């Protein structure tokens, strides 16, 4: 009898607690800043082009092989507007295969891919979630605007600046006698050989 009353007490107190759920399609619970939604490509508004150079690091390190990418010569480089010799031509992610692990973001040397807050992309067809470059950039722009995104990994130096940075890193390495510096990332194409 006593234990029944105890249980009833728990139920009563539960009834008095505030509501914790939301009626999903009508209400949305707030997303955390670190929330990992579908990957999206970021947009370099200073040079009016994507950050992505199509180096394929993310493609190679994706555990589910859900993406494909192709690079091309950057016309803006010959014009002298951009420091990127190569630029992404086409990029496709099959979001139905993506497991939202964030490895692509980890390995990217240019901060060109980010886990956006986009998470509602239900489609009627199995392959309808294959998104192309314009959609990915659109998702990226929305995400950048929402969180006030700043490039963290590299400062997108001009070719000259990169040479100076490399030389500085080399001398620092020689002085410290230590492993390669983390600042030496801009020159490397493959994320796998970095420290």
């Amino acid at each position, binding site marked *: 009898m006593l234990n029944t009353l105890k249980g009833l007490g728990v139920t009563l107190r539960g009834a008095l607690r505030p509501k914790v759920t939301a009626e999903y399609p009508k209400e949305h619970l707030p997303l955390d800043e670190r929330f*990992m939604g579908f990957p999206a490509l970021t947009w370099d508004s200073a040079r009016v082009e994507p950050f992505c150079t199509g180096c394929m690091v993310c493609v190679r*390190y994706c555990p589910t092989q859900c993406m494909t990418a192709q690079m091309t010569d950057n016309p803006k480089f010959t014009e002298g507007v951009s420091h990127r010799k190569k630029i992404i031509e086409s990029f496709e992610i099959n979001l139905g295969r993506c497991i939202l692990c*964030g*490895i692509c973001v980890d390995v990217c040397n240019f901060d060109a891919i980010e886990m956006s807050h986009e998470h509602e992309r239900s489609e009627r067809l199995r392959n309808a979630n294959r998104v192309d470059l314009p959609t990915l950039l659109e998702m990226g722009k929305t995400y950048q605007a929402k969180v006030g995104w700043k490039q963290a990994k590299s400062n997108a130096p001009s070719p000259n600046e990169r040479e100076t940075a490399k030389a500085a890193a080399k001398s620092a390495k020689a002085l410290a006698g230590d492993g390669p510096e983390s600042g030496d990332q801009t020159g490397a194409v493959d*994320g796998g050989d*970095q420290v």
Partner: protein
Amino acid sequence: MNGFGNVSGARGLTALSGSESPPSPGSEPGTVDMMVNMGPQHPATHGVFRMELRVDGERVLDLVPHIGYLHRGSEKLCEHELYSQIITLFDRLDYVSNFNNELVLVTAVEKLMSVEPPPRAELIRIIMCEFNRIASHLLFYGTFAIDMGAMTPVLYNFRDREKVQALFESVSGARMMHNYFRVGGVKQDVDADFAARALTLCDDLERGVDDSDRLLSENAIFIERTSGIGVISGEAALDWGLSGPVLRASGVPYDVRVEEPYSRYAELDFGVPVGSAGDCWDRFYVRILEARESIGIIRQAIALMEPGETMARVRQIARPPAGEVYAHCENPRGDLGVYIVSDGGERPYRLKVRPPSFCNLQALRDLTVGHYIADAVVILGTLDIVLGEVDR
């Protein structure tokens, strides 16, 4: 009595068609034994697990478990993945305690590479793992009560588990498949307000565990359904290779965190709750006590936390030297071990998982035979298996 080879084919088919088999020697005269097929689509099997029961009326005479419905070939897949990618596969083994799975893999690779993660990273790992243990146990209290027809506790437990997952989301970016631990540390440092949030959550969880305790532990029906059911002695439990709460409920104080302290568990002060009878009630109550110990561990770990690095200086793509290593950790379900053979490459040559759920499941037949069909559900519930880990 019956090996695995004896049950497939004709016997399996008769079970499915519902026809009866001849009486067993012990049955009452004039009766026939019946095959009852339970699962794989059965809510009480907590996944895709199938039990083939031979019953005499309500009594279970024999039980044959069938596994493999969730087999994804994880171990073989690991041979083709980089160590950083394997973490995502380990997230999917025991999918209600993802952090604990990640920990055992990174511990093994770090052991092989002789890498020491920074102290702050180790404490973050411990806090995450203990929160995950509580979340996993909360899920157990709820589903276990549902197995016996008590619908209320699961609602409260999911409410509290949701808070844990919200904290996980703010730390790792994902509620369940985190991919947060790295070989040599963790992906990124926690926020500045993490300690305060975690301590508030500890208070909430303490209340949540107390609620489950009050709702279930002393309930007359609950005690009637669980005490004296599925008894296993300490020696038998050791013989079967059981581990975790299932073993400790039988009075064997074996906990990997104490026996072979990994990470920074040696610095933390916590008790190992043990049961005495080794029945279903003990297996339930050991988990209640364990969740409380975990809350204590989290509070100590938060007090020990100091600012600092969260990642050791290692290559982003781990390449351990040739050799072999075995590491094991205390998961919510028991002793999860991983054995890695490395040929010096970026991918393991062979990776073997010792899944606690699978090993605990071995004792199911011995525990169940002689009890009622309804008790089979309760006994399976106390073993608290996760099929993602059983089948891999």
